[in-house]
């Protein structure tokens, strides 16, 4: 076992394209994820920000094996898994788990809390005699009382259900937990509790997180680095404090400015107009260019590469790197 492997997940140029219903006899390719690269180390939390349609959920589902990558590489602890079949993925699945957005639907309503958690334990081949005590241990990790073990999800609050979901995901002793909008459906007060819980767990067990959210303040709170996704690509990447206080990409800037605050008059610069791009029909060049108020002619011709703009941050923008070497493209790569 390569415990010296500090790099947990290494994604390189990942593309996830789907075949859509043919429109006017033309085959439609839906480019949900279009050339994404990042790395996650042990014990680290990487945040992914983006609106609906940016591809972040597809990315999460591809990492846990629900969607198949169209091209690119995914390395888990050094092992290349992008072309694995379902059967060969099975041992890998233990290492990456997911907590879903909907606390009401991610637990089987017919399973008790203990049964839901025990399913995860069973994957680890925990002997039957020990299952009960392991379940209790996990319940205490997520700070739920043991008396809830025999309850059904319909008898729990949203926050409690999410804790159960977290306990279930911990049952396989994963190296990475993907939180796909895990707190978005919770009340704000509960949200803070869950985020703190996640951080405590990380301190205790050294698990890494991939935290997906559309809420920038959550990401800033919990993740060390953050990637901003737009149109299936990462447009800005770096230390979350740095990116969120001093955003470089026009989209990130507009995103931050659009967050309503309680302080006085809003600035009306950088307001985003228009709609997010249709993944079946991405614009050529930079996918944000049609809505960008800083765009130059190069933006609609070439797709910008993610380049280092400061020691802590990378950005993909022609306006920031007007003379950089970029590859010519027709709106991203086409892999069918």
């Amino acid at each position, binding site marked *: 076992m390569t415990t010296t492997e500090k790099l947990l997940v290494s994604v390189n140029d990942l593309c996830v394209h789907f075949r859509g*219903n*043919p*429109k006017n*006899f033309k085959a439609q390719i839906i480019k949900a994820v279009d050339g994404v690269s990042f790395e996650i180390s042990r014990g680290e939390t990487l945040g992914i920000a983006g609106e609906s349609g940016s591809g972040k959920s597809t990315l999460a589902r591809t990492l846990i094996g629900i969607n198949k990558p169209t091209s690119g590489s995914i390395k888990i602890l050094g092992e290349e898994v992008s072309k694995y079949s379902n059967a060969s993925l099975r041992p890998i699945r233990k290492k990456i788990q997911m907590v879903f957005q909907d606390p009401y639907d991610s637990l089987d309503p017919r399973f008790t809390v203990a049964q839901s958690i025990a399913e995860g334990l069973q994957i680890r081949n925990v002997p039957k005699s020990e299952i009960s005590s392991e379940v209790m241990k996990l319940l205490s990790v997520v700070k739920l009382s043991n008396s809830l073990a025999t309850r059904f999800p319909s008898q729990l609050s949203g926050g409690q259900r999410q804790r159960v979901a977290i306990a279930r995901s911990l049952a396989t002793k994963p190296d990475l937990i993907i939180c796909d909008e895990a707190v978005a459906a919770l009340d704000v007060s509960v949200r803070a509790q869950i985020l703190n819980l996640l951080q405590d767990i990380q301190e205790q067990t050294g698990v890494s997180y991939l935290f997906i959210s559309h809420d920038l303040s959550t990401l800033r709170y919990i993740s060390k680095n953050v990637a901003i996704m737009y149109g299936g690509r990462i447009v800005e990447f770096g230390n979350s404090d740095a990116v969120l206080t001093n955003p470089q990409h026009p989209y990130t800037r507009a995103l931050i400015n659009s967050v309503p605050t309680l302080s006085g008059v809003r600035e009306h610069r950088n307001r985003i107009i228009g709609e997010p791009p249709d993944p079946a029909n991405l614009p050529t060049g930079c996918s944000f260019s049609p809505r960008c108020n800083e765009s130059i002619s190069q933006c609609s011709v070439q797709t910008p590469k993610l380049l280092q703009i400061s020691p802590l941050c990378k950005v993909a923008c022609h306006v920031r790197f007007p003379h950089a070497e970029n590859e010519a493209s027709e709106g991203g790569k086409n892999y069918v």
Partner: protein
Amino acid sequence: MTTWLLRRTIQMLAVIWGVMTLAFILAFIVPGDPARMVAGTNASAQAVANIRHELGLDQSLVSQYFHFVVRLFHGNLGVSFALQNQTVGSVIMRALPFTMALAIGGILWELLLGIPFGIIAAYRPKSAFDRIATFSALFGLSTPPFWLGLMLLYFLAFKLSVFPLNGVGHPLIWYLILPSFTLGVGGAAFYSRIVRTTVINVLRSPFIEFAQLKGMPASLILKRHVIRHALMPIVTMIGMDLGYFLGGVLIVESIFGIPGIGQLAFRSISTLDVPIITGTVLIASVFMVLMNFFVDVLYTFIDPRVKLQRNT
């Protein structure tokens, strides 16, 4: 839309092919020697063998199947064994109009009884009318059609002589009222319940409330919104029912003496008249498949949600 249509048509053809094959297998497993039946019981073995050869019955299974399919494409359903060389086609054509009239009558009853009852019951939920209507509906669903037919015959035709006792004559409609009612009552019951549930749900939806607040008169609401929604599940079911009825409802036909396809099929089974069996089975199934297909296409025009899919 066109891709969907193409796919659906191919599906339909596949089903028709499956039905054809099933009909052929059916014909094959029917016991009895058709050649002997055609030749007659007193024919010599040589005559039987000749006829067998003529009918192509001495060929292999596969080649018989092949010829069967080819003949079908030419619209030739074969010649009846038992009915003295009449073509299956002509026999069926004689019986079909009666079955069609009966089927249409049945559907009319279903609509005339089911839809109004369902709508009225939905507008007055839990009222006396609703309870009676629901109960009669359940009653209609649970009554065996043959028993109902017999009861109707006994009381209305025999005892009271309101309706004719048997067979067909002039005016045809008069002879068909009781049988089509018997056919339709079960479906009417079913429809009325579905309409009631659908309309109740529609009446509860926000856009109806909005229309009422706007001051739209109830009759207009009914006409524009409610009926459209009520019709949607009905359209699907009418298709299936029509297909089913057109296959010949043999029990009702035999009780009331209507010389339709159902009667034809039944008699042909007792005489083991294979070509007619195959013919009637085929006609019935093809009707069913065509109706389903037609309903599917119709649905894209009625249901606005499916309409959107159509245009992309």
